[in-house]
């Protein structure tokens, strides 16, 4: 190779390098990750309607555990299991919203006898109920790491409702949004 050609290659290489550095640009991206505390849920209290005498009507336990009657009387009487709303304590990450899914039984059952059952609930930052007798919120964003789900319900008592202890299982599921 001639010396002249070598010079030409050197000049060309220098020009290419200069052009490449003239087009260089950069930016930055931030990698973030949020570590969430695994959710927990604990049942503290079951839902109890107490003692009831048959009658055409409904009995409701609100989220404070107070009982009310409607319809053509389903007399509720003292004694038996203490009245209470169901209470669940939820643990997780503060300010991280979560979904609430409640699966109530269609009926409370005693052997082959049934009473229709519907549930309602509220989610709160404290365990103090509002209270409510309706509502099925699907999400909640807690202020702190601990929140509460208070659940009440309504049963329909027939005129000749058979005596017995009626029960049903309620499943409460929570999941981060």
């Amino acid at each position, binding site marked *: 190779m001639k010396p002249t050609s070598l010079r030409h290659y050197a000049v060309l290489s220098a020009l290419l390098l200069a052009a490449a550095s003239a087009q260089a640009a950069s930016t930055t991206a931030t990698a973030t990750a949020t570590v969430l505390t*695994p959710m927990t*849920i604990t049942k503290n209290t079951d*839902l109890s309607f107490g003692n009831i005498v048959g009658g055409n009507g409904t009995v409701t336990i609100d989220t404070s555990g107070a009982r009310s009657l409607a319809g053509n009387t389903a007399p509720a*009487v003292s*004694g038996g299991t203490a009245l209470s709303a169901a209470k669940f304590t939820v643990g997780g990450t503060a300010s991280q919203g979560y979904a609430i899914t409640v699966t109530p039984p269609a009926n409370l059952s*005693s052997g082959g006898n049934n009473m229709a059952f519907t549930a309602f609930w509220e989610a709160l930052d404290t365990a103090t109920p509002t209270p409510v007798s309706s509502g099925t919120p699907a999400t909640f964003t807690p202020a702190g790491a601990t929140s509460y789900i208070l659940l009440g319900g309504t049963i329909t008592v027939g005129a000749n409702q058979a005596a017995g202890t009626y*029960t049903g299982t309620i499943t*409460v599921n929570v999941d981060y949004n």
Partner: protein
Amino acid sequence: MKPRLGPTSWVALRCLAAVAALVPAAGSAWAVSAHGIAMATVIEPIQVNRLLGLPASALEIYLSQRGPAGPQTGSVLIRVIGGVGDQPVAVQRAQPSPVQAQGLVGGAVILDRGLAMAVMASMSDEEQGHDDKPVAITIAFN
């Protein structure tokens, strides 16, 4: 002609599929559940339709309602019936003060489940004045 994927591309595709499969699993992995029990107890009412046995005083009624849980205590429900064979027109919880105020005449009998009683009541009707009506009593003990 379809482009053919090289070995490296297949590996990448498999990795993507694995990540895609993990995404929904990661979401449900946070879910937790708890179970609660809903419970109600329907008790058999004791029907008393006529005077029975020993007299019962308002004090006895009061004590039966206010005493600690046991076979001699419970709530008394008075079902007022407009006439023989009529359906119940109203139900009220018998409270001590109304019982005394209305001057109920009562009788009582000791049953297997405790004190039961039957009364005749002089019901007050604001529009038509006082009237004697038969009452059927449902007594539910603890």
